[in-house]
Protein backbone atom coordinates (compact mmCIF):
# COMPACT_ATOMS: atom_id res chain seq x y z
CA UNK A 1 0.00 0.00 0.00
CA UNK A 2 0.88 3.67 -0.20
CA UNK A 3 2.21 4.76 3.16
CA UNK A 4 1.29 8.25 4.38
CA UNK A 5 1.84 10.35 7.44
CA UNK A 6 -0.09 13.25 8.92
CA UNK A 7 1.51 16.58 8.14
CA UNK A 8 2.51 18.76 11.09
CA UNK A 9 -0.65 20.44 12.28
CA UNK A 10 0.84 23.91 11.92
CA UNK A 11 1.32 23.35 8.20
CA UNK A 12 -2.23 22.13 7.75
CA UNK A 13 -3.61 25.07 9.68
CA UNK A 14 -1.53 27.55 7.70
CA UNK A 15 -3.40 26.63 4.51
CA UNK A 16 -6.90 26.86 5.93
CA UNK A 17 -6.69 29.45 8.70
CA UNK A 18 -8.66 32.00 6.77
CA UNK A 19 -11.58 29.83 5.75
CA UNK A 20 -14.78 29.61 7.72
CA UNK A 21 -15.87 26.11 6.84
CA UNK A 22 -13.47 23.29 6.00
CA UNK A 23 -14.09 19.65 5.19
CA UNK A 24 -11.57 17.08 6.42
CA UNK A 25 -11.85 14.24 3.94
CA UNK A 26 -10.62 10.80 4.95
CA UNK A 27 -9.91 7.75 2.86
CA UNK A 28 -10.54 4.18 3.87
CA UNK A 29 -7.98 2.93 1.35
CA UNK A 30 -4.28 2.71 2.10
CA UNK A 31 -4.36 5.84 4.18
CA UNK A 32 -7.04 4.47 6.48
CA UNK A 33 -5.27 1.15 6.77
CA UNK A 34 -1.99 2.72 7.75
CA UNK A 35 -3.80 4.83 10.37
CA UNK A 36 -3.26 8.20 8.78
CA UNK A 37 -6.58 9.11 7.25
CA UNK A 38 -9.34 6.71 8.27
CA UNK A 39 -12.54 7.58 10.16
CA UNK A 40 -10.80 7.78 13.52
CA UNK A 41 -8.07 10.13 12.33
CA UNK A 42 -10.63 12.37 10.58
CA UNK A 43 -12.50 12.76 13.87
CA UNK A 44 -9.28 13.67 15.67
CA UNK A 45 -8.17 16.21 13.10
CA UNK A 46 -11.61 17.86 13.03
CA UNK A 47 -11.57 18.17 16.78
CA UNK A 48 -8.00 19.48 16.81
CA UNK A 49 -8.66 22.06 14.11
CA UNK A 50 -11.72 23.34 15.92
CA UNK A 51 -9.68 23.69 19.11
CA UNK A 52 -6.96 25.55 17.30
CA UNK A 53 -9.51 27.88 15.70
CA UNK A 54 -10.90 28.60 19.13
CA UNK A 55 -7.42 29.38 20.41
CA UNK A 56 -6.79 31.65 17.45
CA UNK A 57 -10.18 33.30 17.91
CA UNK A 58 -11.31 32.41 14.41
CA UNK A 59 -14.82 32.01 13.15
CA UNK A 60 -14.11 28.56 11.84
CA UNK A 61 -15.65 25.16 11.70
CA UNK A 62 -14.24 21.89 10.54
CA UNK A 63 -16.37 18.98 9.39
CA UNK A 64 -15.35 15.40 8.71
CA UNK A 65 -16.23 12.79 6.09
CA UNK A 66 -14.52 9.61 4.95
CA UNK A 67 -14.76 8.00 1.49
CA UNK A 68 -14.04 4.41 0.65
CA UNK A 69 -11.16 5.67 -1.41
CA UNK A 70 -10.11 8.86 -3.12
CA UNK A 71 -8.15 7.45 -6.05
CA UNK A 72 -11.24 6.59 -8.07
CA UNK A 73 -13.71 9.02 -9.66
CA UNK A 74 -16.55 6.67 -8.80
CA UNK A 75 -15.77 6.95 -5.10
CA UNK A 76 -15.36 10.71 -5.41
CA UNK A 77 -18.76 11.16 -7.04
CA UNK A 78 -20.46 11.76 -3.69
CA UNK A 79 -18.06 14.52 -2.70
CA UNK A 80 -20.27 17.47 -3.82
CA UNK A 81 -22.95 16.33 -1.36
CA UNK A 82 -20.61 17.19 1.52
CA UNK A 83 -19.52 20.53 0.19
CA UNK A 84 -22.40 22.75 1.28
CA UNK A 85 -20.84 26.10 2.29
CA UNK A 86 -17.51 24.37 2.48
CA UNK A 87 -14.70 26.63 1.31
CA UNK A 88 -11.83 24.18 1.32
CA UNK A 89 -11.05 20.49 1.67
CA UNK A 90 -8.17 18.94 3.61
CA UNK A 91 -7.57 15.45 2.19
CA UNK A 92 -6.11 12.77 4.41
CA UNK A 93 -5.60 10.43 1.44
CA UNK A 94 -2.25 10.03 -0.28
CA UNK A 95 -1.13 12.51 -2.90
CA UNK A 96 -3.11 10.60 -5.49
CA UNK A 97 -6.38 11.53 -3.77
CA UNK A 98 -5.51 15.22 -3.58
CA UNK A 99 -4.53 15.22 -7.26
CA UNK A 100 -7.65 13.46 -8.42
CA UNK A 101 -9.93 15.78 -6.43
CA UNK A 102 -8.10 18.72 -7.94
CA UNK A 103 -8.48 17.18 -11.40
CA UNK A 104 -12.19 16.51 -11.03
CA UNK A 105 -13.20 19.66 -9.15
CA UNK A 106 -11.14 22.50 -10.55
CA UNK A 107 -12.98 25.13 -8.52
CA UNK A 108 -12.51 23.40 -5.20
CA UNK A 109 -9.61 24.32 -3.00
CA UNK A 110 -8.09 21.07 -1.84
CA UNK A 111 -5.07 20.81 0.46
CA UNK A 112 -2.97 17.83 1.47
CA UNK A 113 -3.25 16.78 5.09
CA UNK A 114 -0.64 14.07 4.76
CA UNK A 115 2.82 13.50 3.36
CA UNK A 116 2.93 10.55 0.99
CA UNK A 117 5.97 8.52 1.94
CA UNK A 118 6.40 5.31 -0.04
CA UNK A 119 4.97 2.03 -1.22
CA UNK A 120 5.41 -0.32 1.67
CA UNK A 121 4.19 -2.99 3.97
CA UNK A 122 3.04 -3.14 7.59
CA UNK A 123 5.87 -5.04 9.26
CA UNK A 124 5.00 -4.68 12.94
CA UNK A 125 2.62 -2.71 15.18
CA UNK A 126 2.85 0.86 14.00
CA UNK A 127 5.77 0.17 11.67
CA UNK A 128 5.77 0.35 7.90
CA UNK A 129 8.67 -0.29 5.57
CA UNK A 130 9.33 0.52 1.95
CA UNK A 131 9.46 -2.52 -0.32
CA UNK A 132 9.01 -1.19 -3.85
CA UNK A 133 9.97 1.94 -5.69
CA UNK A 134 7.67 1.47 -8.66
CA UNK A 135 10.62 1.62 -11.05
CA UNK A 136 8.47 0.19 -13.81
CA UNK A 137 10.79 -2.67 -14.68
CA UNK A 138 10.70 -5.32 -12.02
CA UNK A 139 13.78 -7.52 -11.96
CA UNK A 140 13.47 -9.08 -8.54
CA UNK A 141 13.11 -12.46 -10.17
CA UNK A 142 16.90 -12.29 -10.27
CA UNK A 143 17.30 -11.18 -6.67
CA UNK A 144 15.32 -13.73 -4.72
CA UNK A 145 12.27 -11.46 -4.63
CA UNK A 146 14.04 -8.71 -2.67
CA UNK A 147 14.29 -5.34 -4.37
CA UNK A 148 17.70 -3.64 -4.12
CA UNK A 149 16.39 -0.50 -5.77
CA UNK A 150 13.94 0.07 -2.97
CA UNK A 151 15.95 -1.50 -0.18
CA UNK A 152 19.60 -0.62 -0.89
CA UNK A 153 20.39 3.06 -0.27
CA UNK A 154 22.59 3.12 -3.34
CA UNK A 155 20.16 1.09 -5.40
CA UNK A 156 22.97 -1.18 -6.54
CA UNK A 157 22.06 -3.62 -9.26
CA UNK A 158 25.31 -5.53 -8.87
CA UNK A 159 25.78 -5.45 -5.13
CA UNK A 160 26.71 -5.64 -2.39
CA UNK A 161 28.90 -2.59 -1.99
CA UNK A 162 32.11 -2.76 0.01
CA UNK A 163 30.55 -1.44 3.17
CA UNK A 164 28.31 -4.17 4.44
CA UNK A 165 29.54 -5.67 7.63
CA UNK A 166 27.86 -7.89 10.19
CA UNK A 167 25.07 -8.11 7.67
CA UNK A 168 23.99 -4.52 8.25
CA UNK A 169 23.78 -1.65 5.80
CA UNK A 170 26.66 0.81 6.00
CA UNK A 171 24.42 3.78 5.24
CA UNK A 172 21.80 2.85 7.78
CA UNK A 173 22.85 0.21 10.31
CA UNK A 174 19.21 -0.01 11.42
CA UNK A 175 18.41 -2.01 8.33
CA UNK A 176 19.86 -5.26 7.10
CA UNK A 177 21.97 -5.20 3.94
CA UNK A 178 19.48 -6.34 1.34
CA UNK A 179 22.28 -7.59 -0.90
CA UNK A 180 23.55 -9.74 1.91
CA UNK A 181 20.11 -11.30 2.17
CA UNK A 182 19.84 -11.75 -1.58
CA UNK A 183 23.12 -13.61 -1.70
CA UNK A 184 22.37 -15.82 1.27
CA UNK A 185 19.04 -16.77 -0.22
CA UNK A 186 20.35 -17.46 -3.70
CA UNK A 187 23.16 -19.48 -2.22
CA UNK A 188 20.69 -21.61 -0.30
CA UNK A 189 18.76 -22.18 -3.50
CA UNK A 190 21.95 -23.03 -5.34
CA UNK A 191 21.32 -20.15 -7.72
CA UNK A 192 24.22 -17.89 -6.80
CA UNK A 193 25.73 -18.32 -10.24
CA UNK A 194 22.84 -16.31 -11.69
CA UNK A 195 24.45 -13.23 -10.11
CA UNK A 196 27.65 -13.75 -12.08
CA UNK A 197 25.80 -12.24 -14.99
CA UNK A 198 26.27 -8.47 -14.93
CA UNK A 199 22.91 -6.74 -14.62
CA UNK A 200 23.10 -3.93 -17.16
CA UNK A 201 22.28 -0.27 -16.66
CA UNK A 202 18.62 0.41 -15.97
CA UNK A 203 16.29 2.14 -18.37
CA UNK A 204 15.15 4.93 -16.10
CA UNK A 205 12.55 6.09 -18.59
CA UNK A 206 10.32 3.44 -17.12
CA UNK A 207 10.73 5.11 -13.74
CA UNK A 208 10.85 8.79 -14.50
CA UNK A 209 9.23 8.56 -17.90
CA UNK A 210 8.28 11.51 -19.94
CA UNK A 211 5.97 13.07 -17.43
CA UNK A 212 3.46 11.03 -15.47
CA UNK A 213 3.46 7.40 -16.35
CA UNK A 214 0.34 5.89 -17.76
CA UNK A 215 -0.97 2.40 -17.94
CA UNK A 216 -3.67 1.42 -20.39
CA UNK A 217 -5.35 -1.94 -20.57
CA UNK A 218 -6.81 -2.15 -24.03
CA UNK A 219 -9.59 -4.62 -23.28
CA UNK A 220 -11.03 -2.31 -20.64
CA UNK A 221 -11.02 0.91 -22.62
CA UNK A 222 -13.71 2.08 -25.00
Amino acid at each position, binding site marked *: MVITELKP*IEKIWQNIADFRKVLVLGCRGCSGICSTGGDREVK*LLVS*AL*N*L*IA*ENEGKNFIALGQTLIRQCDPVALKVLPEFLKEVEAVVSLACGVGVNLIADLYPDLKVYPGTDTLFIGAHVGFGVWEEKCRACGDCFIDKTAGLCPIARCPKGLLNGPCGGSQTERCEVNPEIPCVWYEIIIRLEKRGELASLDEIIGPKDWRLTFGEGPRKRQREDLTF
Partner: protein
Amino acid sequence: MKGKTLMFVCRELGSEDGIKDREDIVLKTLDCAGDLTVFEVLKALEEGFQQVFVVGCKKGTCKSRIGNLRAEKRMATVRRYLGKWAEGYRLEMVYLNKEKGQTLLDQILKA
Protein backbone atom coordinates in the same frame (compact mmCIF):
# COMPACT_ATOMS: atom_id res chain seq x y z
CA MET B 1 -4.28 26.11 39.06
CA LYS B 2 -6.49 27.94 36.70
CA GLY B 3 -9.58 26.96 34.80
CA LYS B 4 -11.37 23.63 34.92
CA THR B 5 -9.49 20.42 35.45
CA LEU B 6 -10.36 16.97 34.22
CA MET B 7 -8.84 13.94 35.76
CA PHE B 8 -8.86 10.49 34.27
CA VAL B 9 -8.09 8.14 37.10
CA CYS B 10 -7.51 4.43 37.10
CA ARG B 11 -10.06 2.55 39.20
CA GLU B 12 -7.25 0.78 41.03
CA LEU B 13 -6.23 4.02 42.64
CA GLY B 14 -9.68 4.58 44.18
CA SER B 15 -11.26 8.00 44.63
CA GLU B 16 -10.36 10.68 47.05
CA ASP B 17 -12.71 12.74 49.06
CA GLY B 18 -10.48 15.78 48.88
CA ILE B 19 -11.01 15.96 45.20
CA LYS B 20 -14.65 15.17 45.12
CA ASP B 21 -15.28 18.30 47.16
CA ARG B 22 -13.56 20.64 44.76
CA GLU B 23 -15.73 22.24 42.15
CA ASP B 24 -12.93 22.98 39.71
CA ILE B 25 -11.95 19.37 39.36
CA VAL B 26 -13.92 16.74 37.49
CA LEU B 27 -13.00 13.15 38.09
CA LYS B 28 -13.54 10.39 35.55
CA THR B 29 -12.77 6.88 36.58
CA LEU B 30 -11.39 4.44 34.01
CA ASP B 31 -11.06 0.68 34.38
CA CYS B 32 -7.44 1.23 33.41
CA ALA B 33 -5.53 4.30 32.30
CA GLY B 34 -4.92 2.44 29.05
CA ASP B 35 -8.61 2.79 28.18
CA LEU B 36 -8.11 6.48 27.56
CA THR B 37 -8.63 7.56 23.94
CA VAL B 38 -7.09 10.50 22.16
CA PHE B 39 -10.48 11.64 21.08
CA GLU B 40 -11.79 11.80 24.66
CA VAL B 41 -9.04 14.19 25.61
CA LEU B 42 -9.54 16.43 22.59
CA LYS B 43 -13.28 16.44 23.28
CA ALA B 44 -12.64 17.47 26.86
CA LEU B 45 -10.52 20.37 25.70
CA GLU B 46 -13.27 21.38 23.28
CA GLU B 47 -15.69 21.32 26.23
CA GLY B 48 -13.55 23.88 27.98
CA PHE B 49 -11.21 21.99 30.27
CA GLN B 50 -7.84 23.71 30.51
CA GLN B 51 -6.08 20.92 32.31
CA VAL B 52 -6.26 17.21 31.72
CA PHE B 53 -4.48 14.80 33.98
CA VAL B 54 -4.28 11.12 33.41
CA VAL B 55 -3.50 9.27 36.58
CA GLY B 56 -2.21 5.74 36.20
CA CYS B 57 -0.51 3.25 38.45
CA LYS B 58 3.16 3.34 39.21
CA LYS B 59 5.21 1.90 36.36
CA GLY B 60 5.29 -1.86 36.58
CA THR B 61 2.16 -2.15 38.68
CA CYS B 62 -0.49 -1.75 35.96
CA LYS B 63 -2.92 -4.65 36.09
CA SER B 64 -3.09 -4.71 32.29
CA ARG B 65 0.68 -4.52 32.23
CA ILE B 66 1.22 -1.50 29.97
CA GLY B 67 -2.08 0.35 30.19
CA ASN B 68 -0.40 3.21 32.02
CA LEU B 69 2.39 3.50 29.44
CA ARG B 70 -0.13 3.42 26.64
CA ALA B 71 -1.99 6.29 28.26
CA GLU B 72 1.15 8.38 28.25
CA LYS B 73 1.66 7.74 24.52
CA ARG B 74 -1.96 8.73 23.86
CA MET B 75 -1.33 12.02 25.64
CA ALA B 76 1.66 12.55 23.38
CA THR B 77 -0.57 11.98 20.37
CA VAL B 78 -2.94 14.62 21.67
CA ARG B 79 -0.05 17.02 21.84
CA ARG B 80 0.96 16.13 18.31
CA TYR B 81 -2.52 16.89 17.02
CA LEU B 82 -2.44 20.25 18.72
CA GLY B 83 1.08 21.17 17.66
CA LYS B 84 2.27 24.42 19.17
CA TRP B 85 -1.23 25.09 20.54
CA ALA B 86 -0.75 22.26 23.05
CA GLU B 87 1.32 24.68 25.08
CA GLY B 88 -1.84 26.53 26.01
CA TYR B 89 -3.05 23.53 27.98
CA ARG B 90 -1.79 21.43 30.79
CA LEU B 91 -1.75 17.88 29.56
CA GLU B 92 -0.09 15.54 31.96
CA MET B 93 0.43 11.96 32.77
CA VAL B 94 0.83 11.17 36.44
CA TYR B 95 2.09 7.87 37.81
CA LEU B 96 0.83 7.45 41.34
CA ASN B 97 2.39 5.27 43.99
CA LYS B 98 -0.41 4.53 46.45
CA GLU B 99 1.83 2.59 48.77
CA LYS B 100 3.97 5.61 49.42
CA GLY B 101 0.89 7.44 50.48
CA GLN B 102 0.97 9.87 47.61
CA THR B 103 -2.33 11.54 46.97
CA LEU B 104 -3.73 12.92 43.76
CA LEU B 105 -4.00 16.36 45.13
CA ASP B 106 -0.42 16.37 46.30
CA GLN B 107 0.70 15.46 42.86
CA ILE B 108 -1.32 18.09 41.11
CA LEU B 109 -0.55 20.86 43.54
CA LYS B 110 3.08 19.98 43.45
CA ALA B 111 3.15 20.17 39.67
